[in-house]
């Protein structure tokens, strides 16, 4: 690329050796050549530079979440939820993910029908959910809170309303589930989920 750029600059420097008329062109020249060139080179370097890894030894082990996209809702399951990961008591969410903070979240995306795209902008990039394959996305929340997400691939009539929430929890209540017998008392949930 540098070779081509040098050649291009050489080609355009040739006529400048003759008398240059038209002072307006000087502004175009500086703006149209130097500016894009420096930006291009900067971006090229930045793009190929290996980005700082979000996950590392300092963070906890990865946590898996299975997201199965439907027209027009998200089905969420937790294979890493411990002893209650399967069976009728298995944690199950609709349009919500509950995740722990500071752990790499490995989202396994599948689709029931058409192509959808899972995107929580503040947590990471997007990944398409495509029928027939499992796509993997790595996210991490460094702070507890609620993060909004949308479906980012046109999937039919209610594509605009296929939003979801990602709730990042600090502490052991991260897989909190409400059951009728809790009576709305979060302490009972925390008690139940203590390992």
């Amino acid at each position: 690329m540098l070779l081509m750029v040098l050649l291009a600059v050489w080609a355009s420097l040739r006529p400048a050796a003759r008398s240059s008329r038209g002072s307006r062109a000087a502004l175009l020249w500086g703006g149209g050549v130097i500016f894009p060139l420096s930006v291009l080179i900067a971006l090229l370097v930045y793009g190929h530079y290996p980005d700082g890894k979000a996950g590392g030894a300092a963070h906890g082990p990865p946590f898996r979440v299975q997201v199965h996209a439907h027209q027009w809702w998200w089905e969420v399951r937790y294979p890493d939820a411990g002893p209650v990961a399967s069976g009728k008591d298995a944690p199950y969410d609709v349009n919500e993910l509950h995740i722990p903070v500071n752990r790499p979240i490995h989202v396994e995306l599948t689709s029931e029908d058409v192509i959808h795209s899972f995107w929580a902008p503040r947590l990471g990039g997007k990944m398409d959910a495509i029928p027939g394959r499992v796509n993997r996305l790595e996210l991490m929340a460094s702070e507890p809170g609620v993060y909004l997400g949308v479906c980012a691939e046109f999937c039919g009539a209610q594509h605009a309303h296929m939003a979801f929430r990602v709730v990042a929890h600090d502490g052991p209540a991260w897989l909190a589930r409400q059951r009728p017998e809790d009576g709305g008392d979060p302490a009972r949930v925390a008690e139940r989920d203590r390992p």
Partner: protein
Amino acid sequence: MTQTLSPWARHRALERDWGSPKGWRSLSAVNHTVMGKRFMLAALAFFLVGGILALLMRAQLASHDSAFLDSELYSQIFTMHGTLMMFLFAIPMLEGFAFYLLPKMLGARDLAYPRLGAYAWWCYLFGGSILLIAMLLGLAPNSGWFMYTPLAGSEYRPGINSDVWLIGITFAEISAVCGAVELVATILKVRAPGMGLNKLPVFAWYMLVTAGMILAGFPPLILGSILLELERSLGWPFFDVARGGDPILWQHLFWLFGHPEVYIIFLPAAGMVSTMVPVFAQRPLVGYVWVVNSVIAVGFLSFGLWVHHMFTVGIPQLGMAFFSAASMLVAVPTAIQFFAWLATLWSGTVKWGVPMLYLAGFLFVFVIGGLTGVMLALVPFNVQVHDTHFVVAHLHYVLTGGLIFPLLAACHYWLPHITGRMPSGRMGSVAFWFIFIGFNLAFLPMHLTGLFGMPRRIYTYVQDMGWDALNQASSLGAFIQAVGFAIFLLDVMLFSRNGPLAPRNPWKAGGLEWAMATPPPSYNIASQPQVMDREPLWATPALGAQMAAGRHWLAQPSPGHRQTLSVDVVTGTPSAVLHLPGPGWLPLYSALTTAGFFLCVLFKLYAVSLGFAGLTLVLFLFWTWQGVVSARRITARDEVRLPAHGQVAGAPGWWGMASALIADGALFASLVFGCWYLRLFAPGWPTSGWTPVPWSMSIALCAGFLFMGMSAGRAGLAAFHEQTGRARGWLAATVSVSLLLLAGIAVLAVGMPDPTSHASAAAMRVLSVYMGLHAGLASVMAAYVLRRSWDRRAGIALDLSILRLWLRYTAVSGIVGVALLMYFPGVAL
């Protein structure tokens, strides 16, 4: 011995031969000036419809939770906006300009295939009308302009909407491919004498590369559309996961077309810029060879970018990196063109005018678009903003900057040529500022909207997303822009009729198109100039007068014949006189039968559609039969006599077939790619229900194809040595072998498993249909040439050379096809 005619008598004689019929008979016109204008007008109509759809969308998105449009209607509107703009406006508009301008710039009298150009226009008109009428009936396609499967498939879109897109667009694409075939032959062979490749107007280089890109880039989508239509209507699975298909195959096929498409749109516009900038700098283009180099580089590079539309699909990182690197590299040849323009402006004297305003706007807007493009090429950035309004902003910046602004400049610039009257400077400037400000107000905030998380193609949004103010600004900008376009149109319409008469060469340009009367006569120029410079009018200001006075080539009109020169590709030395057809009804009739075919497929009347296909074939044969030329030599200039084009190798007809075969080969390559892609990557493979092709059958088929490959060569050799009987023998043998091949392939296909059961069976069936079609057409063509050999009027040398191309292609693709049938379904890995 050559009578000297007065310029007026010459004009009358030429006009009598070249003039187009008037009144309703003008439907049979084929002249490039007429067809160019028709393309431009139809494209303008589609642009206005697309623009209104855009305004509807912006009205809907201006506020949160707007009740103006519902989801279904909105999805039809955004699909149609994209489809109309990309397929029915951008390319036909540029085609119209190219048809109108190229022969004039090249110093020729018409394009190489006037009837094919007319056919292309009718196909475009009918295909576009299918889409428009469907939209008016509420049946417009509604899965987005790139129609991702499975959403566009029969399970989730059972209505006729997607079929309308598939069929209407394929029809319009045929038009573009025909146009490309014509452009290649014209630019290579139909020029003024002496115009070698080093003197070729730079716009012609751009169009040559663009035409090549169309030939290679449209067939993947044509194939994809055929496959999706087969899946929707006959149930042959290609994209259905349960039966061995893969929705990602559609994405690959679509973007293999889709990315070159945007460069197919950009390059002609850049060509116009390269033509206008030297005029407004009053000096020739700086770095001509560098510009040509970068145009060719962009043409090829653009085919290596397609996966950058698929960075979120789950492709391995290394694969994405190739496309990321290529996507950034493509900015370099584009930058070279920019350097050239800027250098031209720098070292010339800049003359300001309305076109220059638009060119400045183009420079500004397109560079911004290019920068966001480079940002998008970086995978980490892309996975954040893919499928958001950031991409919408980017694509409008490059398309509006790269296409619309140069087009508006070109309209203003060439309007005096088309209408003979000057457009208004004041109205033009006002229109420019409205458009420029409106555009930036509409789309600059959209970058932020996308970065704030607003996805594409949502029909509404809730209040607390923080997108309200930005969307309102965008909508306001869109309406301001619309006002600007309205003013521009008003300018064009009013001043075309009532503007001041334009002087000869009002912009003081150097190109040959300004060396004729404006508006141009049907025959363009009374005699074809001997070209010795890149900017002939700057070198010889009196050239126009000389040509009109008949001081150059082909000054002697030949009554009843339309003549222009055919030249050597590299040097431009005249080698033959080309006889071009006059007005006729066959293009219209053929387009009508083609439309009949497509409509029957749309409405699932398959038996009737086959009838229409057969009828179209018959009409094409009549069409070819009519193009017969005598064998005598013609006086091209005082002492130079040239043969008629049929007598010389490399005639435009040959180039036309070669170009068509490039497109055919691209289709076949996409099919081979599709088969292997499914075999290796689709989730439902390998399949157990695969019946191997018997060895004896494969060998027989290959032998048949090999025979075909050599028979036309033998026939040609025999004809060259005047052994007519022998030639006829070879041709008869070709007919029989082709028919046997067709029968063999049919037997093979019948023995294959049910195509609706699995993608492998469907793919094999498509392969056999492809091979069978080619073998069948080979027999038809060989029979035609055989029949022609009894025609005393002219020799069959040209026909044989064209047949030879077809037979060799069929042989190669046939053998590859047989190998594929034998191995790919059951290859154990």
